[in-house]
Structure formats: structure tokens, C-alpha cells
């Protein structure tokens, strides 16, 4: 498999585990989690 909508799952994770985050703070958390995939 070459592609999958993992980004959508990251958004779901942030909604579930960081429900208070909004706006830019929420977006930054999503980006940090996505970036963490690089080093796995």
C-alpha cells in the first residue's frame, strides 16, 4: 500500500486525546504528531 488517509486519523486522535485544543494550537499538535512519523 502506498497511501492511506492517516492524517484524518491523526485529527481524530487529537480530538479524542486533546479535546480542549482549538485553532492554531490544535493544528500545531496535529503537525507535530504527523512529523513524528518520520522517525519510526
Amino acid at each position, binding site marked *: *500500500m*502506498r497511501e492511506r488517509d*492517516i*492524517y484524518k486519523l491523526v485529527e*481524530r*486522535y487529537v480530538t479524542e486525546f486533546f479535546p480542549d485544543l482549538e485553532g492554531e494550537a490544535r493544528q500545531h499538535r*496535529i503537525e507535530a504528531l*504527523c512529523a513524528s512519523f*518520520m522517525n*519510526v
Partner: protein
Amino acid sequence: MTEEIKKLYDERVNRFVTTSNLKEPDRVPIMASAGSWAIANAGYTYAELLGNYDLEAEVSLNAHKGFYFDGIRGSTPLVNHAMLTNFELGSKQMFLSSNGVSLQHHETSSMEADEYDEFIADPFKFIANKISVRKLSAFQADDEEEVYQSMVKLFQTPGEVAKKTYAFKAIHEQLGLPAIAGGSNIVHPFDQFFDFVRGFEPTMTDLRRRPDKVLAAVEAMTPYQMRNLPKEPLPEFPWRTDNHHIAKFLTKDLFGKFYWPYYKAAVEALYNCGTKLLSHFEGPWVQHYDYLQELPKTSLICILENDEVEYFKQRFADQFTIFAAISGGTLRIGDIERCKEEAKALIDIAAPGGGYIYGARNGLSAPGDADPEVLRELNKFITEYAVY
């Protein structure tokens, strides 16, 4: 921490802080360099320590006791326990050597040459939707809920590992050894792209064939890393640290274009917040010295891997601190008199005026990298010789 240990700890911190401000402390501080060498030396393998937090703490304590060390590089434990989750989820980036002695790295490329535009348009979506799936076989499962649960496990593992790990705390509290670097590492966006996205060979080829695309990809990741730089005042010590992988392969011009802007911003951000960068100059950096001259005085502690210490001291004695030790080859041969001679020559060059930490350029990793008795005697000698 007992009063006696606290006194030792404070003395050691003072040594690092004084020398990094280009003043002479009571003597040159000595860095610990235990890596997987410490594990092998205790008769264990990396594989045996993975997931075994008690054994890790025991091995770690023994590897730092009685060696005349003044500090350790960071609070990172001896092994990366989170690897167990990565292995479980099908990551192939790192692997254990067949004898279990060491953790090794697979050279991989997770992006094709024709995918630059997509990466540049939205690096985070690209990393999530393409790179993660290419790296983790668990993300290729048919059931989306299963993939989500794997992802939750991946994200939760570092926190769980941190709760269980106490090796550093044991070293800190029982031996009074400070970690000289803390907080999150400074990561250069170009190193990130080089190490984890395109990989070594493709990136080097792209620098010749499509340099503008490479630069645009690095710039697409730069705002994220800029955001991670500190903005509020920080304690002067411990410092932050970094690793550089691609810098040594860059010409002076390429360094200036691709690497210097973020590096300079990172060093200045730390300096302006009141701390310094412990910067690992992997490979030769001599071709980049003209750039470094622009950086503030006392902003860097430079771990010199292949640079000539004497020349560096001539250029930067009034600007930066040197972090260097005798060559790994000399230590490996194990002739104590030869080790002492090399250490003496190094200290005579690097120590005057302060701005010097005796520390191995490369951590000890293989079982034969150092005879523990030779290391002990050498460090004892340094505590006596490198007195101001």
C-alpha cells in the same frame, strides 16, 4: 540526593558553566561516554536491556561509577525502549544486530523524486498519508480501526516509556552526575529531510539534479522547526543539543544556502533565551568556519569529531568551547602511557583560558572500544593533570 552528592553535583555543574563561559574552572570537566559499550562491558546485550528498566538502571549506574566523570551527555537512557513498539508495528528503519549487541540503522528512502511538489505543498499530509504507511506495515491493515489503535499505541509509547525509565534519575541522584543537555533536541529541517524522507543517496543526487526542489522541501519544513525553538528565558544550564548529518557533505556555498539560515536562527534563539547549544560537528566542519564567526560569543559548545583541535582553538578561542578527547583508536589500542601522552597534548592545546571539556567525539559503542581499567586510569590522570 544526599548533601555530599549535592555538593559534588554543584561542583560539576560549576565546572561546565565556567568553562563554557570561556573562563578557567578548577579543572577541565570530563564527560562520560557510555553507550552500548557499557552494556557489553556489563556482559549484556542491547536486546536484553530493551524493555527491562531495572537492568538498564543497574548497568547504567555501574557504567558511570568510579570513572571520574563529571557529567553525562543527556538524560536519554542507555536503550531506546520505544523501539519495541516500532518493531511491533513493522518498522524496519532500525534493527537489532544478529547477536543483539547493538541497534543499527537501515538506509531508507520514503519519497520518490517525482513527489517533491506534493511534499512541498503539504509536508505534514504527505508524511502522514504516504511516509508513515511506507514505514509501518501495521498502517497497511485492512481494518481502519486496527490502524487507529496502532497509531494510538505509537503516540502513547514515549510517555509510557518515560514513566518507567529511571536510569538517569539513579545516576543523577546516587552519583551526582548532571546531564549537560536537556529539553528537546534542535533538529535541522534539512537533516530531517535527509535522514527520514529522501535518504542519503537520493538527497545527494537531488542536490545536483533538482537543487531548487530540495531547497523548497527544506523550507517547507522550516516553519515547523522554527516554532520548536525556545522563545522564553531558559536556565543557562543544562544546554540544548543537536546532531548534524548532512552538513559535513555540503560545500561552503551549499551550507550557506541550505543549512546556515536555520542553524544560525537556532543558535541565536538559544543564546537570546540565556542558554547555549551543545553542537555535534559530525565529520569535518572546517569548510564552514567562516559562517560560525558570525555567532555570538559563548553561544556554542562544539563537539569536534574530525576537526583539528589546534586550528579550531586558534580560530575560536575567544568565541566557543571545545568538546574533544583523545582518538577512539588510541583508546581502543589500550596502551595507557600512549593515551596519557595524547591526552596531555590535547589538554595543553585546548584547556588554556577555559572553553574546554574533555569528552569523546564519538560515544563508546563496541565491546572493544575501551578497556575499563585503562579508561579509569586515563580519567584519573586527567583529573590530576588538567588542573588550572
